[in-house]
């Protein structure tokens, strides 16, 4: 029988190796798999390349992973957010690398990585500093830049509900990058609020089919990043 469930967040992240590329779901707090990130801090892998839209807040979750010097490079669209001081400080000191990618190009590159599209053209960033050094091609009279698909060794994502096959549904705007990151990683690790029997998720409403999922751990009462940040919490 297929059952992708594992018993703990520690077990879920156990195989993440030094130097891995790790996609982490979430747009700000919404969809951020904070328990998986904390387990990754405990696990100790370092020299990671992390793909996320932002760089975390306060001193928990992604910001804590960065603060603990586990991340050598961020690929993201918006590294400055409210309560975000960890990344800016390291970046200013030259201690972390940044690949800045327009948000839609980031999403499309991740989707392309998962869909077997090695490269595509887009109008986004044409004529701007973010297109410098990139191939530009005119198609039907408009200029486009060539962008490459993005893959990862691991994706860490959060969902609302999962079954043993790895079928997932999400909650509201916490869906954001998770479905495409699940597609783009060699190994996709999921924290779910609810774990249900196969067949309890209507096949018509599955957002991420199980084929894109490898390991599932139930975290039924996830922490709220904004509450931790407001309370001044620091992880670990």
């Amino acid at each position, binding site marked *: 029988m297929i059952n992708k469930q594992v018993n703990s967040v520690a077990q879920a992240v156990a195989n993440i190796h030094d130097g891995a590329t790790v996609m982490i779901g979430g*747009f700000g707090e919404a969809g951020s798999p904070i328990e998986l990130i904390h387990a990754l801090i405990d696990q100790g892998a370092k020299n990671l390349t992390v793909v996320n839209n932002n760089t975390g807040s306060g001193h928990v979750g992604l910001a804590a992973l960065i603060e603990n010097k586990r991340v050598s490079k961020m690929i993201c669209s918006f590294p400055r957010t409210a309560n975000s001081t960890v990344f800016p400080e390291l970046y200013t000191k030259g201690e972390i690398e940044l690949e800045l990618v327009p948000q839609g190009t980031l999403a499309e590159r991740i989707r392309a990585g998962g869909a077997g599209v090695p490269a595509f053209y887009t109008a986004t960033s044409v004529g701007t500093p973010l297109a410098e050094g990139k191939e530009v091609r005119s198609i039907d009279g408009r200029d486009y830049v060539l962008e490459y698909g993005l893959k990862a060794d691991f994706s860490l994502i959060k969902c609302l509900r999962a079954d043993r096959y790895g079928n997932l549904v999400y909650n509201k705007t916490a869906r954001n990058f998770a479905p495409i990151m699940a597609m783009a990683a060699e190994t996709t690790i999921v924290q779910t609020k609810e774990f249900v029997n196969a067949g309890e998720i209507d096949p018509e409403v599955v957002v991420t089919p199980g084929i894109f999922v490898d390991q599932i751990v139930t975290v039924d009462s996830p922490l709220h990043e904004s509450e931790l940040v407001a309370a001044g919490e620091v992880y670990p």
Partner: protein
Amino acid sequence: MSEEQNFGWNREQMAERAAQDIPNGAYVNLGIGIPEKVVRYVPEGREVIYHTENGLLGMGDAPEPGMEDPELINAGKKNVTAIPGAAYFHHADSFSMIRGGHIDICVLGAMQVAENGDLANWSTGNPDAIPAVGGAMDLVAGVKTINVITQHVTNKGYPKLVEKCTFPLTGVGVVSRIYTDLAVIDVTPEGFKIVELAPGVDFDYVQERTGCKLIAA
């Protein structure tokens, strides 16, 4: 009503003026800042659908206090609601709406707009600043009509409407119309053209505060 309304438009009035140009049935994306206020001023009898690039079509008002859901936010990471008839989707689908030309109007803030429609609104180019772009470049490349709401001049009094942007560009030749505290201005093949002057403001006053030649209404 505040005294200053006798001269120019305040932020609320700029948003209200921009809202008047959004037709019934339009799909609209609003940038962070003054553009977010546009949602409050949609004229009676029109229904407009708001898109937020983090995965929601049919964004509604801010929630009642105590009803906030940290998993229901907008692109500015503020709490929002969803209207009956809304839809959630992932980021690639969301940006397909933007980049595929499906959003009718986007209203954005600006640091500089050039008379050919070039927009700079993401970076001062200061090498010490942390660069951050978000979805701005996708929006200006993909949305059918890009309108801008901005103060006519910077805090230090420098023109924001210029012959050529000195800040790094967000997009080339993308802006259609600009709503400032002083005027509504169209980007035309001949350059900036005044559409409407704010109360108490005359052409010369606007021209003096603009970095290139204006065309009168």
